[in-house]
């Protein structure tokens, strides 16, 4: 029987060995490589949660209690605690973040010279005043004297200059630097490594900094509200250039208390914030987990998003969640884009015919239960320049067939093959694309093929102008029509990925860029919008809307149409 005992021993050994391999190998491989930052942060496993900043003893104590378990730490401050669904930010470095998911946290932790108020007007933030020279080229900012970084250091003009210079530095290679700061003289040269410093930024004195831009652009201030122009702490970044974003020091209403990747982010109110300490003391973002509504109903979250499956229930005022339901519009448009250089979309009549033969309104109403609004043009509601009248093509199959016959192709049979591309995260095409394709087949007899690619491939093809037709979206980065009309439709814009070129539109957009009178400027953009929609370079489809349920204890909740600082305006009555 000794043989069998040996067998059992061996079997147990194998199992144990497997356990050791899976656990030990990963540990050995991973921990072994961590020397470089392991030295900086002795507790490697909890590296993200340890308090690296020397912000003071009170911070350290709070960090320790937070480490012990969130339920324990949270009980003390449950009165001012807000629990939100969230996702991991790509980065908390304001200068390289290009996505709204990251910006949502960044705008609460950092500030720029100017910011956007909840009604989307440009407001002073770190700056106390701004003086614009009569020629519109020089912006002189005077800083407030009560702005402190989270670690207590006062912000001065040099911090502003250093931050902008860092954002545009060649080493950082920020994807957003040129888009937002490129108007400042010398930023391009600095970005391409041709100049050590930025000529257009001068520190006048401790509290005054002057920006000089290349042309009188009325939207320049709006661009400075974007995180790329935010002020960061030079000392922290220079002492820990790669790891500082885990525990960034900013000037914002909240500071990052804890970030456990894939689990949660905790923001803690900044008592020394220059507009006063926010009412909500602690904001907890739950990063993991499934449906937000389920967790909302379980009492785990204060806010949840409503999907098309629950919208009927949410809209019913008599249902349990009905009274908590709110709806907000977004600065996001989805559209079908045609590459106007490629057959058959080099003919405007083909583009118009496709636009006239899809019934967006019916799809919005029946399939999406009106959770999205059919687009009335390119500019969204609340955006400066928006006009409510509908400028888009209405569903008119007869007119569509007439235009198709009038096109240089004459009929559906003569058209070259058409492929529509979209980002496919999963198996099925977007439901609206499927509906459109069927409508084109029914109404015009055109067979359009769907090609789904993953995000990376899609971007590559879009940038190289290889897509014939695609279904995509645009999210406004600052509330100015220039951010969409000029960027996407000017024939010389790098972001014009549809090959659209109309001399008339170019001329209007050029004039609007430097028009100083706001009303006249918006009128120019409205004119450009009308022509572009008429030319059908894009078929505007929908404006997004966001649907949420909000816990009754949360007061003043709003979903802004684009990312702006908002947490300090919220109150929690608990």
């Amino acid at each position, binding site marked *: 029987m000794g043989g069998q005992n040996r067998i059992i021993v061996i079997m147990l050994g194998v199992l144990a060995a497997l356990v050791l391999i899976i656990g030990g190998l990963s540990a050995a491989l991973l*921990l072994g490589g961590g020397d470089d930052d392991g030295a900086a942060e002795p507790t490697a*496993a909890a590296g993200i949660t340890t308090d690296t900043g020397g912000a003071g003893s009170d911070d350290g104590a709070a960090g320790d209690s937070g480490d012990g378990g969130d339920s324990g730490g949270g009980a003390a401050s449950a009165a001012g605690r807000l629990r939100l669904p969230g996702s991991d930010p790509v980065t908390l470095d304001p200068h390289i973040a290009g996505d709204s998911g990251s910006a949502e946290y960044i705008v609460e932790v950092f500030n720029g010279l100017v910011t956007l108020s909840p009604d989307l007007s440009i407001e002073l933030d770190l700056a106390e005043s701004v003086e614009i020279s009569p020629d519109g080229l020089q912006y002189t900012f005077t800083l407030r004297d009560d702005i402190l970084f989270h670690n207590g250091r006062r912000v001065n003009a040099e911090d502003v200059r250093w931050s902008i210079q860092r954002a545009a530095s060649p080493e950082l290679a920020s994807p957003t630097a040129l888009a937002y700061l490129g108007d400042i003289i010398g930023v391009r040269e600095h970005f391409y490594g041709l100049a050590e410093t930025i000529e257009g930024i001068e520190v006048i004195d401790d509290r005054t900094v002057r920006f000089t831009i290349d042309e009188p652009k009325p939207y320049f201030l709006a661009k400075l509200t974007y995180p790329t122009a935010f002020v960061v702490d030079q000392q922290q970044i220079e002492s820990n250039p790669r790891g500082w974003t885990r525990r960034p020091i900013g000037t914002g209403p909240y500071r990052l208390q804890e970030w456990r990747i894939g689990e949660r982010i905790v923001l803690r109110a900044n008592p020394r914030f220059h507009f006063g300490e926010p009412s909500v003391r602690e904001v907890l973002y739950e990063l993991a987990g499934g449906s937000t509504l389920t967790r909302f109903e379980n009492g785990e979250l204060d806010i949840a998003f409503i999907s098309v499956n629950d919208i009927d229930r949410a809209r019913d005022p008599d249902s349990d969640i009905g009274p908590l339901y709110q709806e907000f519009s977004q600065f996001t448009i989805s559209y079908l884009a045609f590459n106007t250089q490629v057959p058959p979309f080099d003919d405007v009549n083909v583009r118009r015919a496709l636009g006239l033969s899809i019934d967006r309104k019916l799809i919005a109403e029946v399939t999406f239960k009106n959770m999205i609004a059919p687009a009335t043009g390119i500019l969204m509601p609340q955006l400066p320049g928006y006009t409510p009248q509908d400028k888009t093509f209405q569903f008119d199959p007869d007119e569509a067939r007439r235009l198709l016959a009038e096109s240089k192709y004459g009929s559906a049979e003569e058209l070259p093959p058409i492929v529509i591309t979209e980002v496919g995260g999963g198996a099925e095409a977007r439901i609206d694309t499927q509906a459109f394709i069927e409508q084109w087949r029914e109404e015009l007899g055109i067979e359009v093929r769907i090609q789904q690619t993953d995000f990376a491939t899609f971007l590559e093809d879009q940038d190289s102008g290889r897509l014939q037709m695609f279904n995509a979206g645009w999210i406004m980065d600052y509330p100015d029509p220039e951010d969409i009309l000029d960027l996407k439709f000017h024939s010389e814009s790098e972001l014009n990925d549809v090959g659209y070129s109309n001399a008339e539109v170019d001329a209007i957009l050029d004039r609007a860029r430097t028009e100083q009178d706001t009303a006249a400027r918006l009128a120019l953009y409205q004119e450009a919008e009308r022509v572009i929609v008429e030319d059908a370079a894009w078929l505007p489809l929908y404006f997004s809307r966001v649907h949420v349920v909000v816990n009754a204890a949360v007061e003043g909740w709003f979903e802004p149409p684009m990312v702006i600082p908002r947490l300090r305006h919220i109150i929690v009555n608990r």
Partner: protein
Amino acid sequence: MAAYIIRRLLWLPVVLFVVSFATFSIARFGPGDPVSVAAGQYRDPEVLERIRAERGLDGSIFEQYGRWLFGDLYPGGSGGGSIRGDFGESFIQRGFTVNELIRKRMLISAQLGLLALVVVFGTGIPLGLLAARFSGTWIDPFVITSLLFLTALPVLVIIPPLLWLFALQLDILPAGGWGGDGFAGIFDVWWIGGVIAVPIPDPHLYMPVFVLSIGGIAGVARLVRITALEVLTEDYVRTARAKGITEAAVALRHVLPNSLLPVVTVIGFALVGILEGAFFTETLLGIPGIGRFSIEAVQSRDYDVILAITVIIATAFLIANLIIEISYTFIDPRVRLGEAVNA
């Protein structure tokens, strides 16, 4: 024997080299790269070129692979190189090293995987023995057929109804996510009458572990059943019975150990199955593990993360395979090394 093990161990780096270079080339060969994914809406081609150069994505594929292997992935980087276990910095989540991004997720997946492995063998073996013991009665086909049915239930099909039932209707399990901080989530305490503390697994674990195990249980049970049936006809079992040893003693001393033998060989298969299942389970249930992370990394072309995961999984798998192969020769001396059925 020793020579064979050494030969296989020497072979290991070669396999890893090929695996990593193949993954590297496939990832780089395709269209799209992490720079454009991370750039957001503003993608000025010149700027992107500038960023690529800055982040070490320029040069020939061999240069890039060399940098990946021996360090200096990016200027100012740690210069460790993958060969020393430093897998560089994530392209997408800037400021985080690949190692630390993977470490915690791996911990979570490893807990799930090992628990599932325990459940697979812990229920598969008894069920297999049960079926063998009651061979010829209705119990045998009943057990085997119901297990087969469980195998036929794809993860994607059962998770929504399970969530609906347990999280929405009965409200006794969470709707996904991961409970604790890496490790801490395993145990919760359940008080009976306020006196007796019973440690119970975190409720977040039940559904993923169940879903991950059901595929493997049937396989293990069937294997155990077949071998147990074979053992029951062997001479030494008949002899034992003839000597009047009780049925229970026979089962315990002869049937059980001998029918467990082949189970060792399927541990590797079970692990692969669990790993594959983890991709879906973690994605569907919102668990921040390595399966979900690797899918995200592939979709955003986070090259260094993809490579690190591939290399780690391949290493673990190759070593596990080797150990199983070696242990098999211990167990069954008839098998010559190198001709063993590769489990």
